């Protein structure tokens, strides 16, 4: 009886408290909270201006005055990274959210209904896959106009086929199971089956893919910034900073190193969090 009580308490707890019962998830969750906190508060606390050049102080090495050194215009890299954080997180998270939502819905419809609908959706995805992402973004931005949100849209469209494929194959596997038939026999609507019975059971591959995609979204966005699409200099964007830094790799490696480190850190934290979240969401992995 005591065992049952503890199981019951476990189930009734909120998602947040369940996250904190998992070591990996809780540590990475705290890191993500810190990142968000820094992104929101950080820009008000920095000493230097991120965009004003100081030509007397170009490519200075890291020191007590400039923690991460300065870039080729003499701007403090630490300041620029802090100021660039909201932008990078925003691009990464929002474009993955949009891309994943569209991709997951298309993938589930494709896998569940099969037949013509399936072929049609998947052939469209193949076309998107085959289409070079940069070209797609160029076309989109030249049609819609150059702005941050069009950049995000381009990145998210780029992510859709990957989600659609993964979700479709997982959906096909789930549809073979008898509980889907059981729901059909009970008279459940297609929408109920898709969102209540298929979706929760394919969450783990989606989460893993999403956390990985946040990384690639940040990188894609920075590539596009480098080409002059979306984010414009002197706005401190991590990818753009990395690209600028690569010209000074031999004289001043820190210019590229710290933005790269920042990207890697964010990507890693999201990835570990995704891993932990998958364990938390799976009822079978509970002790």
């Amino acid at each position, binding site marked *: 009886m005591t065992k049952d009580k503890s199981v019951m308490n476990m*189930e009734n707890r909120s998602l947040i408290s369940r996250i904190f019962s998992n070591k990996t998830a809780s540590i990475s969750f705290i890191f993500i909270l810190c990142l968000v906190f820094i992104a929101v508060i950080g820009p008000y606390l920095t000493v230097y201006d991120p965009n004003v050049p100081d030509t007397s102080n170009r490519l200075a090495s890291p020191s007590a005055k400039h923690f991460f050194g300065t870039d080729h215009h003499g701007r403090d890299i630490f300041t620029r990274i802090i100021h660039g954080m909201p932008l990078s997180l925003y691009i990464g998270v929002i474009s993955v959210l949009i891309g994943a939502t569209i991709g997951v819905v298309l993938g589930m419809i494709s896998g569940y209904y099969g037949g013509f609908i399936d072929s049609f959706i998947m052939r469209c995805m193949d076309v998107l896959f085959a289409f070079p992402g940069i070209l797609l973004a160029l076309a989109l931005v030249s049609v819609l106009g150059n702005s941050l949100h069009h950049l995000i849209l381009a990145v998210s469209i780029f992510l859709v086929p990957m989600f659609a494929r993964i979700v479709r194959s997982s959906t096909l596997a789930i549809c073979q*199971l008898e509980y889907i038939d059981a729901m059909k026999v*009970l*008279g459940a609507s297609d929408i109920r089956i898709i969102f209540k019975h298929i979706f*929760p059971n394919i969450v783990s591959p989606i989460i893993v893919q999403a956390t990985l995609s946040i990384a690639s979204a940040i990188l894609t966005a920075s590539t596009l910034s480098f080409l002059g699409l979306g984010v414009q200099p002197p706005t401190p964007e991590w990818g753009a900073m990395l690209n600028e830094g690569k010209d000074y790799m031999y004289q001043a490696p820190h210019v590229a190193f710290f933005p790269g480190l920042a990207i890697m850190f964010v990507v890693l934290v999201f990835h570990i969090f995704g891993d932990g979240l998958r364990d938390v969401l799976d009822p*079978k992995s509970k002790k």
Partner: protein
Amino acid sequence: MRKEILKVDHLKKYFPIKSGIWNRTVTNIKAVDNISFTVHEGETVGIVGESGCGKSTVARTILQLEQPTAGNIYFEGKNLCLLRKKELRRKRKEMQMIFQHPHSSLNPRQRLKDILYEAMSIQKVVPKARKNEQVHALLQKVGLQPHQQERYPHELSGGEKQRVAIARALAVQPKLIICDEIVSSLDISRQAQILHLLKKLQQDFNLTYLFISHDLEVVRYISDRVIVMYVGQIVEMATTQSLFESPMHPYTHALLSAIPTPHPKAKRKRLLLKGEVPSPVEPPSGCRFHPRCPFATETCKKVAPTLQGTKDVEQNHLVACHYGEDIARNRSSFF
């Protein structure tokens, strides 16, 4: 005569085999080929046959999980194949299915109470206020404890999961329940418990069962009437007693002689079949059983026998064999 609840009328289900770049239908797997039978209210009809003979396809087609290639299915006089999607969804309340694999027939992300409550809410059988009460009642009916309602399926044993699946089927208060191999993945003591439970529920709720199994002993225990299937067709249909005591079709003989006897020293004659089950893609000409039948003649190769009643034996004993009566009469000399 009791009321007819389910009537399967010349049902056919072919699965196309497609190939080539145009995805043209090359040939068909004739999973179910022209079968007809009726089920009366309150009775249990067993369907037996080897794996691949189309038993499960019959069940799935009756419940419209598969569209029949030809033929009709009448439930209480209504043709299910002609119902529109919405009407069919409402009609599904009347007939439920319990599946073979208890491990995959429950959504692993739902607690037992959610599973049962969802079934009730889809068909709106119980007002919201009484849902907890009803969940408890259902769990008790199938022999589970009310406190287990908080459990997830993976915390239960196979037998317990199958009980939950039964409870889910009962939740919408159906009239007909189709049981597709529901005890075959359980060990023998659990099988007996589940079968007892089904019998008890039948009395309590006046249920009708269509019980599909490959296990003859199980079918004998639970069924009032038995249908024997071979390669997509019915070869024999009779009351349980009549079928087990005086089987007429040679295939039924072979099946019955394959039942293991509990006595280790008991000697008996067995009818062993030669060869393999023919492919349902190209079933043999004439009688489908003729390549394996020890009594086959030239007629059997050419003319397909129809399922018909016999004079000698009981009225309801139907058999699809040219020599069914002769075989039954001279039974002692053959076996």
